[in-house]
């Protein structure tokens, strides 16, 4: 592939920002969103006048409750942005698909500095009582006697299989069957996340957790227990994607988008995918490495989606960071993936301990670590090459970042 064809390389990450994050903040979702956006703009060394593009996932959505704190138009209008390009949408390669779109937009010259954001208030939307949003997007919702499942959900809901917790549990179970993966191995995703969260003042759950704590937790959907499931929360994360030649003199060294992976091969379906020991990330991982001379062994840090713990294991395999089927032994004991191990993983605590900021939290953390701005949880040597991936099931995307 001609170097000039890999146009995402003309883009970089130039700044990141976050709002307050909490289990339940009961704050106005748009206000929370703007907090995150303004923090990222300021962090990049830009002003709202510099922002000429906007990208978000998933755009305005009423259900599940709290799933989307603001759409692109909401933020464009509130900040009075003048945009050469803008987009939002759910049907893309995971939450970070919106960031990939922004890379392509700046590479094509439609915009120079794109504000990308993801905003959630699922914690507050669930009210004081709590409880998980149990029907996935596309499943309708709202309830009432007249509810009828449509689309692909009509082939899942009658069988009491309404949620990603159940679907991903079935992926994990297949992986357990094919490769002998165990709960004692899976636990290390949650335990590693928690020990990292202990050092992150913005994480939601920071109390130490032991293997005994993990094994004693109540089961949710086997093989997943409570600690294999991420935490609904409130918070907004934003990142600035800039054209590289316009980012040289900004506040942070540009993090070049060396390559992206967004391919999906196989049916775009959770239950009808041909091999449930892997996910759509198998295509995204292959595509990413086809677009760069870097190799998996060059990666010094991996921030990998953990909406459910096993998804991180799946990403490790799909990205070639360990062999197919070998993620269990790879993470067992937690030595390799610890903050000062050979491949630090989810150094902020992941969504399991730091809250379901829904994909963007991993990019925020990856950039923070590569800039050496991680505070108490900083990886001892700030990584020059890092990988960030988000999504699961039929919606997966990854970015390889290189600090310049």
């Amino acid at each position, binding site marked *: 592939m001609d170097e000039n064809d890999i146009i995402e390389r003309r883009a970089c990450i130039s700044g990141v920002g976050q709002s307050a994050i909490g289990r339940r903040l009961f704050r106005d979702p748009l206000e929370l969103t703007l907090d995150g956006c303004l923090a990222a703009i300021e962090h990049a060394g830009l002003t709202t006048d510099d922002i000429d593009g906007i990208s978000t996932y998933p755009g305005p959505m009423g259900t599940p409750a709290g799933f989307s704190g603001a759409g692109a138009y909401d933020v464009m209008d509130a900040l009075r942005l003048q945009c050469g390009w803008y987009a939002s949408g759910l049907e893309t390669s995971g939450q970070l698909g919106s960031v990939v779109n922004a890379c392509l937009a700046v590479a094509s010259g439609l915009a120079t500095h794109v504000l990308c954001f993801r905003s959630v208030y699922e914690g507050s939307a669930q009210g004081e009582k709590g409880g998980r949003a149990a029907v996935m997007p596309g499943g309708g919702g709202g309830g009432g006697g007249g509810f009828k499942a449509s689309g692909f959900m009509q082939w899942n809901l009658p069988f009491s299989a309404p949620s990603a917790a159940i679907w991903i549990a079935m992926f994990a179970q297949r992986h357990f069957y094919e490769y002998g993966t165990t709960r004692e191995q899976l636990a290390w995703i949650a335990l590693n996340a928690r020990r990292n969260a202990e050092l992150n003042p913005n994480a939601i759950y920071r109390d130490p957790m032991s293997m005994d704590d993990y094994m004693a937790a109540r089961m949710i*959907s086997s093989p997943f227990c409570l600690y294999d499931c991420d935490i609904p929360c409130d918070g907004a994360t934003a990142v600035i994607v800039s054209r590289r030649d316009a980012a040289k003199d900004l506040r942070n060294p540009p993090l070049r988008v060396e390559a992206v992976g967004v391919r999906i091969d196989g049916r775009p379906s959770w239950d009808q995918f041909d091999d449930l020991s892997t996910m759509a990330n198998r295509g995204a991982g292959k595509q990413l490495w086809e677009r760069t001379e870097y190799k998996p062994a060059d990666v010094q840090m991996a921030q990998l989606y953990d909406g459910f713990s096993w998804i991180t294991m799946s990403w490790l395999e799909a990205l070639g960071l360990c062999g197919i089927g070998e993620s269990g032994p790879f993470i067992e004991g937690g030595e390799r993936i610890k903050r000062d191990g050979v491949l630090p993983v989810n150094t902020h605590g992941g969504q399991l301990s730091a809250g379901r900021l829904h994909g963007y939290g991993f990019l925020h953390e990856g950039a923070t670590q590569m800039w050496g701005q991680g505070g108490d949880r900083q990886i001892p040597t700030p990584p020059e090459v890092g990988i960030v991936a988000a999504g699961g099931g039929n919606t997966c995307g990854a970015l390889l970042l290189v600090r310049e």
Partner: protein
Amino acid sequence: MTKATPRFDLPSTDTETQPFWDGLKEGKFLLRHCDACGRDHYYPRPFCPDCWSDRVSWKEASGRAKIYTYSVVHVNDLPPFNERVPYVAAIVELEEGPRVMTNIEALPFDELRADLPVVVDYKPISDDVTIPVFRPAS
């Protein structure tokens, strides 16, 4: 359970899928069969997803399958799933090839395993809807 109770488990049906649901009430698991290329598919569609022919008909499946994967569901807050826990959600692979989301019944949780042979059974979940569930093939 009355129709007025909020519930999230009922499918929408249309003219294309009604025969599938009608078949289940009569104790038949109907697969879509392509008369042009000979392949079976699921979910049922008005065209063949392999060759896009619209020469598709209904064919009664053998009802024999094996478990592909499963999860024992202990927590779900939505009605009526909250009244069903714990239950087994599973994907089975039909003898004819397609995989189907379903439930496994009449099997202790600790005897669940992938590749276990199962056979279809029919379970009404409302006055109008019967679903295919699977039990161990004895």
